[in-house]
């Protein structure tokens, strides 16, 4: 066992994510990502279980670990109770910690996600919000979304939302004191450290 293998095992989720894979391939059979991409969770579990650092480093630098859609269907069906999608979460964590995510095209997409979703969380306290989903970037949402965004101040109260309001309710502005606490939690728990690591050398 090398350093990378040990790094993976130190994650508190590892124990319940992968204990005794017998390589039956049930996870791959049920996996939506395996149907869409050249992706095989069975092989990933095998590589991680064998613990060869050279293989794990290649995996951490590859597009492969970024194909999973995190539906967790694999966890439901695994006859041994493993969760390949949780193994993926741990691999992605270590890939970012080591800077290996920059070696793959899919891995580099983390920069965009960190800027977009990470920015939303730290700036307004939402993962997603209509103000941060312009129609130009979301043509798949269709003309009703375009209409909603153009008229949101007039439509939101009709559907019970408190758009940019104070007090409780959907789409309220989250108070600044709450935002300060969220940012403080990110500073104390490693959230900011990861943010800086991913966004460095943009």
């Amino acid at each position: 066992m090398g350093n990378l293998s040990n790094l993976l095992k130190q994650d508190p989720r590892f124990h319940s994510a992968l204990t005794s894979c017998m390589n039956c391939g049930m996870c791959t059979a049920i996996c939506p990502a395996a149907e869409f991409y050249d992706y095989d969770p069975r092989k990933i579990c095998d590589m991680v279980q064998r613990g060869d650092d050279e293989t794990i480093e290649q995996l951490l630098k590859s597009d492969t670990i970024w194909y999973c859609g995190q539906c967790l269907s694999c966890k439901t069906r695994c006859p041994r109770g493993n969760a390949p999608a949780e193994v993926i979460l741990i691999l992605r964590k270590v890939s970012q910690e080591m800077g290996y995510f920059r070696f793959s095209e899919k891995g580099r997409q983390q920069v965009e996600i960190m800027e977009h979703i990470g920015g939303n969380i730290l700036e307004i306290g939402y993962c997603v919000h209509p103000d941060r989903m312009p129609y130009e970037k979301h043509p798949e949402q269709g003309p009703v979304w375009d209409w909603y965004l153009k008229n949101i101040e007039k439509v939101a109260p009709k559907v019970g939302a408190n758009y940019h309001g104070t007090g409780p309710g959907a789409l309220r502005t989250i108070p600044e004191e709450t935002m300060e606490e969220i940012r403080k939690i990110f500073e104390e728990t490693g959230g900011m450290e990861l943010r800086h690591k991913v966004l460095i050398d943009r």
Partner: protein
Amino acid sequence: MTENKRFWNEYQKEIAEDHYFYERSCIRQTFFPGSEAAFLKILRTELGKDIRDEVNQHTCTGIGYHSDIVPLQTTMTIVARLFALMTEAGYKNYVPSCVTSFGVFTEICHLWEEDPSLLDKTRELLYKATKREFIVPENIAHPSDIVYKFREQLTPRMKYRLVNRYTGKPLRVVDHIGCHYAKIFPDKGVGKAEFPYVLAGMVESWGGEVIDYPERRHCCGFGFRQYIVQENRGYSVANSKKKFESMEPYEPDFIVSNCPGCTMFLDKWQYTIAEMENKTYDGHGYGIPSLTYEEMTGLLLGYDPWELGLQLHQVQVEPLLDKIGIAYDPGAKYRAADGTILPNPDKPHNLLV
């Protein structure tokens, strides 16, 4: 559904009776805010329950966690802050609107139970960052669990049933359960993951018929980073397409979901597929309406469709309203809250509206 498939009776989960702390969903608020308003109205007005809508709540970071930009310890501590708000307000029953949040909370509570040192560390970090303390909730239930639990109490209050008024036959309904409701921890979901009953129970109690089609359990395709990053969205639409193709032969009247993202994707991807391939799955060019369970419940209770927010769906709902016999004012659909008439949305090229 045949009698020999009623396995869910063995898998009933515990759902608190009253006094809930409600946590809003980022996606639900963004796309279907009327559904959250309807849920609170159903609980308070129809069922006489106590539910708190807290002003200082915020994202659970679940989308960030599953797209790998928020570390586990950060998400645990953010969740702990939400539990602290619940604790300070005097509640013990936590009700997250979002299925991703529900999965995050169940996973974190499981980790804390397995390794109490993680809970201790989270308590320390939360106190250091905010001076707050918390209790772990006694009960965590998804809002769909609560509507399911009280479905028979709601039935006599309903003005409509899930019955086609032209034929007298039950409406044919596709139920879609968000993956993180029961696939991570099957015993946390009504009916577990293989025989989900949380929505099917509502549909059957209210006169409809659930379609048990081959891809019933398949993911809607959200995939977190597979949708968030524009160039990855082929993954997302391909998975929804797989479901639509599987359900099409059963001629569903509508789809109902308990997950905020799934409802949106199963609505919007029908528009996308219609525009890309000139294909719809209803046989008439309009698409299959995709509703939230709050919208379904609210409609049957006689709530105004436009106050529920059904005008925010891309697949139009009027054919469904007509089938059920729901009264509505077509002219009010695109009116503002103050009655001002707003311009209509643009029409899609292919999808009929």
